[in-house]
């Protein structure tokens, strides 16, 4: 049986027989079904994943008519920033970088971003960002959002005014840790309302809450409270909420949104409260395991996200960047895996976008 050239979750090339690929697809699928409590994929779906993983061409593509909408995180930072990670460090203005994405890179939507991609950092420069938004909007055609992470870690010591729950828990100050986390979440929600409504008053079409819940369940609730206030103030806004991980980390453990404990939620439950808060678009994340194969990871991702799409009232865009959705965790993700992950998530999980 000929060997198929594929990769591991850290990007290393490996050769596998089709039987090995199918075994890994079954194992990745079973792991997702067990972890998230979602239905298994059918034998036909797993065979289809194996077919796509095994395609001989370097890159793969969907059939004409099956294309989906692309949203983005980081906006023009991917061109202008040189951070050793995801930016290519080309020194150019933000407008030029945004127009490149619209007119040369075929993006369906785009976003404006500040170099520090965190909401807290936008507050002191909000007037600058409002003017930039007005200027960009006069020249672009695609839906143009503003993007920044809630990044609630910046609200804790030593960067912010609240005690750091992880430090406090080490000192067995559990109740105080929970109190501080809740206070930080309320502060985040106030800041979200401040930034988003001012941007809206300058004509901003929407906001992308990227990497939501990176600081766990309290950040998730703080973001949802902010989204709720934003939606109430700006009924016309385009609101996207993309997650940081497949499972909400329980830093607090018992904090709720609309009567539901959010710690431990997987994508198919996350999307429901994101929609309840008033978002239009959900970015579903499934983490990549670097010691497993691409086939294992992408099957696991398709299993979780398929159920998320099935249960969602709003469009679901799968997060298919570095280290998520089955895409290998390495600084320059190989295009063979990037394109295969997209095709598999479209054909198996029925995603609305990437």
């Amino acid at each position, binding site marked *: 049986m000929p060997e198929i050239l594929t990769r591991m979750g850290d990007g290393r090339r490996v050769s596998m027989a089709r039987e090995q690929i199918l075994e890994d697809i079954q194992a990745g699928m079973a792991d997702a079904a067990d972890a998230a409590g979602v239905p298994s994929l059918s034998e036909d779906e797993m065979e289809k994943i194996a077919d796509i993983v095994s395609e001989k061409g370097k*890159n*793969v*593509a*969907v059939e*004409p*008519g099956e*294309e*989906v*909408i*692309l*949203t983005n995180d980081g906006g023009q930072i*991917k061109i202008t920033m040189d951070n050793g990670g*995801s930016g290519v460090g080309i020194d150019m203005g933000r407008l030029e970088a945004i127009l490149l*994405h*619209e*007119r040369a*890179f*075929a*993006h*369906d*939507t785009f976003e404006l971003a500040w170099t520090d991609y965190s909401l807290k950092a936008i507050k002191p420069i909000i007037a600058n960002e409002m003017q930039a938004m*007005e200027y960009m*909007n*006069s*020249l*672009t*055609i*695609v*839906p*143009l959002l503003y993007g920044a992470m809630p990044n609630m870690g910046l609200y804790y010591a030593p960067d912010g005014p609240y005690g750091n729950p992880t430090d406090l828990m080490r000192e067995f100050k559990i109740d105080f840790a929970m109190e501080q986390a809740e206070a930080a979440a309320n502060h985040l929600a106030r800041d979200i309302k401040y930034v988003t409504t001012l941007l*809206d008053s*300058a*004509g*901003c*079409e*929407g906001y992308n809450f990227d990497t939501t819940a990176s600081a766990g369940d309290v950040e998730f609730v703080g973001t949802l409270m902010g989204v709720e206030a934003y939606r109430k103030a*700006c009924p*016309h*806004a*385009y609101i*996207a909420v993309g997650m940081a991980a497949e499972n909400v980390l329980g830093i607090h453990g018992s904090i709720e949104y609309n009567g539901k404990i959010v710690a431990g939620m997987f994508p198919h439950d996350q999307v429901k409260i994101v929609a309840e808060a008033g978002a*239009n*678009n959900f970015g579903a994340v499934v983490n990549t395991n670097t010691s497993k194969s691409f086939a294992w990871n992408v099957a696991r991702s398709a299993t979780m996200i398929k159920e998320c799409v099935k249960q969602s009232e*709003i*469009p679901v865009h799968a997060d*298919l*960047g*570095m280290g998520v959705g089955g*895409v290998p965790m390495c600084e320059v*993700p190989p*295009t063979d895996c*990037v*394109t295969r992950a*997209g*095709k598999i998530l*479209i054909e198996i999980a029925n*995603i*609305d*976008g*990437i």
Partner: protein
Amino acid sequence: MAMPHAQSSGMGGIRTAGDLVARMQFAKNMHINEAKEHVAKTLDLTPLDLSDEEVMREKRQDLDIGVVTGLPGAPRGIAAKMNIEKLLGLKINSCEHFRQQLREAY
């Protein structure tokens, strides 16, 4: 990394009708097939046509909703978006803001 997605799975942005389908997703919470069907019906095309550059280049030029190449005299930016508003029957916040800045109603 966005480029391989755009090449293999993306609708094509303003090369085709990607921006229009995206607006229906955001404005009306439509899933992808519903959004494509709505835009196709509005443009008197099929959903398959929406990602076809050869079809959409001419259609976009006819409708004055912005084309991807530099075409002297063709609306772009806010002017193209104001035509998209009318075409899709949507209010776009950047256009609303622009109208508010004008001294007379347009």
